[in-house]
């Protein structure tokens, strides 16, 4: 980020803050701020306790010069500037005093400072003394003035000196009295100290006894500590042994983990092997299915080529003529008829020759192709699939060959229910039962004769069946009510 981008960054932030502040100003307004009162504090004093007489502006010189050193300076600030002294100002005036300046000069400095003029206090007799003090600061002339003043005041100074001597002597006398009182107090204190010393000695003896008791307790604590240390040592040794056992156990686990790892590698290899075998097996099964399909095709082709012989063919032609004649007696011309398991198409051709709107279904592809070549309407498929594609009550008649009939009773029941659905009311069903005896499972050897076929159709809701016997088979003819 260069300098310009940095500036932009902060300006963008500040714009956002301004916007947020505007929202906050309306959302959370502050109470109206009353300006705090500004005035001179009444009794705020840095030093203890002495109030400033703010109203008083008239002083005698002796009102201000009767006290000394720091108290004098502090009092001068309060009287002439009406405030507590600040550290710098106070220090400067004390330094002047210490360098030999007169009190009148200090007072004059404060009174005629800018601040002092503003206050305007009046001190009687200060002005001439201040002027003389300032005059004394003038080189040479000031020195002469000081000498002149000192010479003129010698008599007064001598009187002051004698008074001072008397005052000093009185002070010494008072000091001696004070000293005597102090010595007396000291003796009293000494006596009291002696008593306190005796009490301290007694206290010391008590402390010694307590110390001895403490030593006994300390010994007991030491013993307990030793015992505890010994127990801890034992615990530590046990813990170390347990740690060794854990270490061995961990080592054994590591070894087992290593072995398991090897086993896992072997297992993975086995899984790969089994997987490879399964893939090979799948390919083999695919090959077998292909071979089976090819075989089925060949079987169908062979079945289509088999000739039944002249006698059997003559018998079948005779049977079909009789059965078709019986059928045509009940069906008008151009009735719609579906033949299930049409075989070589001989029966279907016969139905078509009678002027019926007949079509057939056959599973053998070779037979279907041959029949279709003869001009018949026939498709490849099984009986249940062909019926499922027909609408309810859409056919006048259904005929079926032996191959359309299932080998079990439940399959036969499903087939007859489906035929009942597709036939129109009054529609005909003709089942051709030819060649060898028809058996159904699971009863095993149950041979379906004419009586049983009639019972089956009756159970499916058809009318009582008519059996049409012939050479080489029977036909069962019935009607949907």
């Amino acid at each position, binding site marked *: 980020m260069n300098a310009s981008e940095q500036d932009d960054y*902060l300006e963008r932030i500040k714009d956002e803050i301004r916007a947020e*502040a505007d929202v*906050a100003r309306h959302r959370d307004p502050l*109470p109206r701020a009353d300006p*705090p009162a500004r005035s001179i504090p009444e009794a705020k004093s840095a030093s203890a306790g002495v109030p400033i007489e703010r109203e008083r502006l008239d002083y005698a010189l002796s009102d201000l010069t009767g006290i000394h050193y720091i108290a004098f300076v502090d009092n001068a600030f309060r009287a002439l500037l009406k405030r507590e002294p600040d550290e710098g100002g106070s220090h*400067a005036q004390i330094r002047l005093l210490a360098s030999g300046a007169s009190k009148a000069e200090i007072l004059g400095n404060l009174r005629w400072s800018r601040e002092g003029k503003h206050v305007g206090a009046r001190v009687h007799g200060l002005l001439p003394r201040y002027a003389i003090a300032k005059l004394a600061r003038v080189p040479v002339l000031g020195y002469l003035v000081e000498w002149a003043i000192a010479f003129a005041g010698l008599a007064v100074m001598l009187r002051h000196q004698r008074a001072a001597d008397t005052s000093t002597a009185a002070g010494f006398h008072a000091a001696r009295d004070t000293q005597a009182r102090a010595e007396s107090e000291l003796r009293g204190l000494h006596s009291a100290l002696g008593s306190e010393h005796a009490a301290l000695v007694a206290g010391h003896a008590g402390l010694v006894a307590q110390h001895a008791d403490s030593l006994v307790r300390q010994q007991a604590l030491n013993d307990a500590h030793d015992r505890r240390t010994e127990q801890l040592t034992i615990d530590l040794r046990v813990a170390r042994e347990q740690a060794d056992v854990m270490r061995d156990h961990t080592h054994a686990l590591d070894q087992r983990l290593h072995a398991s790892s090897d086993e896992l590698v072997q297992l993975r290899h086995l899984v790969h092997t089994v997987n490879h075998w399964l893939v090979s097996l799948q390919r083999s099964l695919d090959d077998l299915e292909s071979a089976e399909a090819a075989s089925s095709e060949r079987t169908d082709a062979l079945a289509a080529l088999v000739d039944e012989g002249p006698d059997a063919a003559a018998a079948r032609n005779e049977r079909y003529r009789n059965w078709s004649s019986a059928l045509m007696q009940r069906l008008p011309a151009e009735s719609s008829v579906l033949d299930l398991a049409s075989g070589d198409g001989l029966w279907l051709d016969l139905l078509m020759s009678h002027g019926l709107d007949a079509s057939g279904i056959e599973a053998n592809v070779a037979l279907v192709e041959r029949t279709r070549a003869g001009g018949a309407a026939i498709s490849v498929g099984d009986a249940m699939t062909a019926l499922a594609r027909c609408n309810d009550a859409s056919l006048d008649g259904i005929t079926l060959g032996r191959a359309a009939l299932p080998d079990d009773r439940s399959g036969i029941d499903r087939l007859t229910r489906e035929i009942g659905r597709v036939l129109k009311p009054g529609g005909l069903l003709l089942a051709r039962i030819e060649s060898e005896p028809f058996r159904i499972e699971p009863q095993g050897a149950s041979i379906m004769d004419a009586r049983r076929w009639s019972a089956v159709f009756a159970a499916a809701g058809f009318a009582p069946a008519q059996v049409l016997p012939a050479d080489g088979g029977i036909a069962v003819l019935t009607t949907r009510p």
Partner: protein
Amino acid sequence: MLVPGLSPHDAVSNDARQMASVLRGANHEVRLFAPHARAIDDPVGTPEEIEGWLQSPRDLLIYHYCVGWEFALALLRRLRVRRIVRYHNITPPEFFEGWSPGYVSACAEGRAQLDAFARLDYDLVLGDSAFNIEDFTTRGVDPARCEVLAPFHEVDELRTIEADTRRVPLGSPLLLMVGRMSPNKGYLDLIESLAACVAGRARDARLLIIGKLDPNLARYGDAVTALIADRGLESRVTWLQDAGGAELRGAYERADALVMLSGHEGFCVPVVEAMALGTPVIALASSALPGTLGDAGLLWENADPHVIAESVARIADDAPLRNTLRQRGRERYESTFAPSVLGVRLLDIMQHRFAA
């Protein structure tokens, strides 16, 4: 080098003593003079001794000008040596109107002397800031005879002290103000800003004030205390008048922002301390503050409490902004205000101005 007073941890004293140290390191013979000195290791002479100590016209007097002082003015008029005025600025008396007549008088006298000081024929006016220099250039002093040198300080010492946070309040965000309690420091605006924080998004805000109150400004202290009570902020404001270096360090470490709403600063060392110690700064763009803070903090044209409060909340919530301000502060300190930088700058000035 003449100073109105010397004491430990005082900004002008720090500047004078470290300037002396740098100049001694360059083989100059340097002596400090002050009317009073407290707990200072350096030998200090009285101001009356200066005239006896300066012997040659090639000798140099550096006067640290921060209060009105007739003695210094008379001395500078009298001496026939080379002279530098090291100007730290004097607060305008208007700030103290109604709070302390003593301060009004002292500041008025100090600033009244500016005209007299400006008329003296200096070799150099050395200001803490460009803002300070303006006091002389607007009075006719040739800008070519003026230089800016930020004051020396004790920030590096502060960085080495182990922080003491025992008295630093817990709270987020924590606002910090460092400076004596004086009307020019904007404490009333600061309290209003804290109130806006609490009323707004920064409801757990706390304020830590580190600064002494001069008894002569007790009236102002009372006003600040009364405003705190009026806004119901007593439990949110901690005021330490006796904090040492370790506590100051702890305060900078824990604070979310230094909030400096001063209306008048000649330089403002606390801002430099905050930059060096990685504390983001929110400041009023007054007097010397823009020059000291530069682009290392959030500067505002006025002390709008809502703007200040939102600034605090934004810094507390916006980590990238916080990190940017910290980084800029540290970079500005190292490049501009580190003692080594100031030392080189001082010696360059001396070489350039007085080599001949």
